[in-house]
């Protein structure tokens, strides 16, 4: 069973990492449709609560049910962070296991330092984590939830460290080879770098999680992890539970030392199944088959269960100590009551914060005589140092700004997937609450017209999947043109970089100076989709002549029609009939 667990979990880990390791963006779209992130608990729960239906909630429902039957299947088989922690531990244990290093000081140190033993459960923390997560979901603080949810933490580590690291390493290799005339390794698309602060944050998560796992195994899973907390509560009532069988158990403690959840108390022959992550290490370790699944019929009262447990076991006297903390937390416990009472207060706090976040006033700074044009539906998020009428855009498929904020956990999957690498995690760009949620950075590139990769990969439906046709008219913003900045006016030279890049013909070049053959852009706002191509290529610095102003609610853009054209080039030339191309006639005009 342990071997099956290891093989299976490594496979899951690899599948979940694939998207983050795909630095060349070569995974086919069909991969996205069957994306392994659909097996993740919190994304699936968010999807389910967001009205995604039973199918969207399949993982959440399945894991709840299977946990009720067998225990926390998710934690060792499907949770990428949990699997990652196991991998870290495996590597940390290497010196203690290796034939040559075993006897060395390092080997002995590792063996000693990594030995685990029974610890009491920190149930208050667990309940608090679950309650906190529930409140975060209820009030739409999913970006913060993303710092508790194991999948999102895993995504942050991979999206902000592994993906850029791998890409940059590849680019170095590519440069090295190209200098020697070998072109087999190509550099990756776009600018993969992320802000140093976010990289540091991700590094902190990586180091923190690794340290926790080396220090006390799955301590994170049984304290801060809301999934572990919730499934642990379900596992307490599981039909089948792993238990130490007193008949065969010799209280030798081998299993206790192996248990990374620190939930086995060999001395008292107790196994706290609510904390068990189902790694089956104990089952394999016990030479006498002393750890086994025991069936507990449902709906048996707590007392009865205690008796039945007692009848199978010998040490009835050890029960009070061995029964999980739950007993101490039964109704009547003062601390629990206090905790329950603190929940509404906390909820009120979050509620206030939520109100604050939605009611942000529009800042309207101005440094020009000409007032900046702020369209009525513009998002309130602007960037320091940029033109004041530049506003952040919700990525395509985001439906509206609230939907996006209230669903995205900042797992960085879309950020890694974006072939243009223009989706960047926000530090404060989306406000304090939007940390790690992606924004579109048009300084790095622009949103490719036919690309919809980010909408397909999003595990929480914060970005709703779009068809290519839908994507082509997905209006996420409007380009705002300022003539006083444009080189056609300031320098009286040709440019038209914007008109050249516009994928939807929203930019029409109108005659500006006929003698000098100069044309100046005009934006058809209802046709513009806000892809940022014009902003990206506009050569004017520091403030671009064209910037994208994001809108709160994503719309469908109009398709350009010839009738919209403001300037018809001097109607068809006078030649009444076009010179026919007669066979044998002279086709050359010179």
């Amino acid at each position, binding site marked *: 069973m342990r071997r099956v667990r290891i093989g299976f979990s490594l496979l899951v880990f690899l599948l979940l990492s694939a998207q983050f390791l795909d630095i*060349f963006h070569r995974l086919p779209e069909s991969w996205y449709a069957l994306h392994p992130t659909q097996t993740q608990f919190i994304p699936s729960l968010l999807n389910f609560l967001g009205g995604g239906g039973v199918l969207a909630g399949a993982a959440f429902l399945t894991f709840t049910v299977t946990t009720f039957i067998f225990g926390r299947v998710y934690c060792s088989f499907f949770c990428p962070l949990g699997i990652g922690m196991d991998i870290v531990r495996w590597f940390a244990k290497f010196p203690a296991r290796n034939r040559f290093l075993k006897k060395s000081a390092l080997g002995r140190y590792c063996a000693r330092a990594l030995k685990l033993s029974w610890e009491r459960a920190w149930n208050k923390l667990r309940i608090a984590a679950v309650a906190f997560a529930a409140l975060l979901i209820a009030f739409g603080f999913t970006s913060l939830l993303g710092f508790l949810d194991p999948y999102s933490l895993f995504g942050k580590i991979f999206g902000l460290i592994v993906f850029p690291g791998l890409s940059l390493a590849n*680019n170095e290799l*590519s*440069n090295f080879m*190209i200098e020697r005339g070998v*072109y087999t390794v*190509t*550099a990756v*698309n*776009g600018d993969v770098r992320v802000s140093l602060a976010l990289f540091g944050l991700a590094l902190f998560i990586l180091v923190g999680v690794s340290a926790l796992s080396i220090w006390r195994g799955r301590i994170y899973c049984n304290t801060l992890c809301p999934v572990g907390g919730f499934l642990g509560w379900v596992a307490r009532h599981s039909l089948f539970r792993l238990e130490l069988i007193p008949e065969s158990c010799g209280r030798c403690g081998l299993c206790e030392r192996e248990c990374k959840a620190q939930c086995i108390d060999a001395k008292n022959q107790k196994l706290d199944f609510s904390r068990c992550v189902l790694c089956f290490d104990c089952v394999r370790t016990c030479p006498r088959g002393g750890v086994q699944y025991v069936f507990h019929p449902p709906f048996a009262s707590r007392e009865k269960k205690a008796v039945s447990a007692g009848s199978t076991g010998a040490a009835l006297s050890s029960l009070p100590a061995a029964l999980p903390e739950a007993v101490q937390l039964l109704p009547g416990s003062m601390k629990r009551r206090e905790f329950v009472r603190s929940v509404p207060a906390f909820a009120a706090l979050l509620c206030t914060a939520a109100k604050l976040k939605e009611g942000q006033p529009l800042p309207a700074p101005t440094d020009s005589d000409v007032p900046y044009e702020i369209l009525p539906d513009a998002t309130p998020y602007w960037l320091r140092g940029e033109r004041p009428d530049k506003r952040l855009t919700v990525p395509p498929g985001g439906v509206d700004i609230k939907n996006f904020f209230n669903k995205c956990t900042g797992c960085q999957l879309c950020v890694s997937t974006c*072939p*243009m*690498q223009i989706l960047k995690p926000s530090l404060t760009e989306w406000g304090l609450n939007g940390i790690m949620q992606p924004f579109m950075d048009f300084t790095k*590139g*622009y949103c*490719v*017209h*036919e*690309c919809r990769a980010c909408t397909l990969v999003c595990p929480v439906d914060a970005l709703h999947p779009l068809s290519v046709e839908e994507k082509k008219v997905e209006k996420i913003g409007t380009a705002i043109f300022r003539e006083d900045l444009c*080189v056609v006016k300031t*320098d009286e*030279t*040709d*440019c*038209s*970089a914007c*008109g*050249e*890049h*516009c*994928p939807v*013909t929203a*930019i029409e*070049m109108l005659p500006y100076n006929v003698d000098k*053959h100069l*044309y100046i852009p005009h934006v058809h706002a209802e046709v513009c989709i806000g892809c940022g*191509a014009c902003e990206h*290529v506009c*050569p*004017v*610095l520091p403030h671009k002549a064209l910037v994208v102003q994001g809108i709160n609610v994503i719309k469908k853009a109009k398709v*350009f029609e010839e009738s919209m054209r403001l300037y018809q*080039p*001097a109607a*068809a*030339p006078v*030649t009444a009939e*076009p*010179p*026919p*191309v007669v066979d044998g006639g*002279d*086709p*050359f*005009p*010179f």
Partner: protein
Amino acid sequence: MKRRSFIKAAALGTAAAAVHWDGALFAQSDEKKSAENSSKPLDIVAIHGGTAAEMFEKGIAEMGGMGRFVKKGQTVVLKPNIGWDRTPDYGANTDPDLMGIVTKYCLDAGAKEVLCFDNTCGNDWENRYKVSGIKDAVEKNGGKMIPGQTESLFEEQVIPKGVKLKKAKVHKLVLSADVFINMPVLKNHSGTKITAALKNSMGCIWDRGFWHSNDLPQCIADFGTFWKTQLTILDAYRVMLENGPRGSDPKRAPVAKYQIISTDMVAADTAATQIFAQVARQHNMGKPYTTEEITYLALAEKAGVGTMDLTKLNMKRVAMA
């Protein structure tokens, strides 16, 4: 070192071309305005009436065969226009069949390798190489696609004759090629009205933004003084008449069946402008621009890149049945 070898090779190539010329074939076809002087090699051939590949085969034979430009063991670099993620029917990129056959001809002429690149308009360059069909066509015929969007591949160069453009980061292949073949596509352009041979240079440099903000036509002409191309094969099989350079609709890029093969970029662009105007009139679409409106032509001529006066050149017009 690279530069020196390049110059040496170029000089050798020219000398060899002159020597080899006598034995070249002259296909007899309908010629006119007999500026053509059959004792001298042709400077420019305009072809009409076939597929892009057919016209090339006919035209290069008129020019004296690929052997006139490509010698054994040389590295040939093809610079098509792969600016946009558009399929060939939009006429936004150079015709892939043409790319394929030119690759083949170069290798048949003894080229050591045929390399092809473009600094595409958008950083999904791999996708654009693919969608345009050019990657497939070039690789199938034995050529190699080289990334055109990796900054480390570009080297800072001084443009001695530049008026506005004094320095530019230039793709290494531009500097290292023995034979550089410019393979533009003729199409409408929202900024410069028409883009063809001279403007195709924008895919050889890193910072296009500088050009756009510093008098684009002058920069195009400036770079022409620096850019050494041995041959220009200008694809006008489809001519995008409107909404260029990206193109909105394949219907706006009618099949016109033209091609120009020239050693002079300015002449090729001048002829191409006239072809554009004629096709625009025929289809009653787009604007029939005059050569004066394409401001970079006169600027390039002034800078000595080439000539706008087609009568000065040894030219041949080939109409295929």
